[in-house]
């Protein structure tokens, strides 16, 4: 997995690429925590290029959301059908705000 972080209109865009599983999910968690700890609390996690996410990945994004809610938010954009399926299975589609495009997710703040 690769992670790119960019700032766009005061929103921090975190783009993950590849497979997120128990081997590397902590890297995503650490990247999100680093942004939150740096005061970047308007976050978008773009999942367009993530073709696989196990429960280890879900655990990290839930942990990050718990940390940031109250002062900001972590919103998701462009989950693939496979990733959306696991989000729905865990009931996270009602907890995260999910957007069909990066532009909409960034613009939602």
């Amino acid at each position, binding site marked *: 997995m690769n992670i790119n972080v960019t700032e766009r209109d005061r929103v921090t865009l975190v783009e993950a690429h590849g497979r997120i599983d128990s081997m590397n999910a902590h890297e995503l968690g650490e990247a999100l925590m680093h942004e939150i700890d740096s005061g970047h609390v308007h976050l978008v996690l773009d999942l367009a290029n993530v073709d*696989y996410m196990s429960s280890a990945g879900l655990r990290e994004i839930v942990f990050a959301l718990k940390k940031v809610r109250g002062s900001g938010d972590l919103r998701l954009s462009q989950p693939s059908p496979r990733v959306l399926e696991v989000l729905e299975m865990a009931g996270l589609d009602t907890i995260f705000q999910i957007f069909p495009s990066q532009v909409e997710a960034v613009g939602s703040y």
Partner: protein
Amino acid sequence: MIVNESHIQIAAVLAQVPIACEFVARAALQAGLDEHAAYHCQLAVDEACTNIVEHAYRMHGENQIIDIVCQTDNQRFTIIIMDDGPAFNPLAQPDPDPTAPLDRRGSGGWGIHFIRKFMDEVGYSREANRNCLTIIKRLPA
């Protein structure tokens, strides 16, 4: 009647789990499952093996093994995952609640939930001092 059987053995460490996933996904496709069903098998094996590494062996499974057997018969693709950890039936654990609000969500439990939901049949047995998790996808008619 089993028409095809294959087996892989991995060390009980997270780094080897993707090897088991790839092996199972390939076997699932060969058995006649479509890409989506094969992905479900891969995710289920990922979750099962990760649980074994993290909980049965508590991340110290370098000298331990996990055996994964794939069997195909005329109707079903069966995956049997075996480890030598202490007796533990993952299926006896309560399912997490998908309707729980954020503040009531714990850190785990979703792996077993996914195994139950993504596979058609699941079963656990303790055989010869080994944990045996059997998970099944029915083949398309």
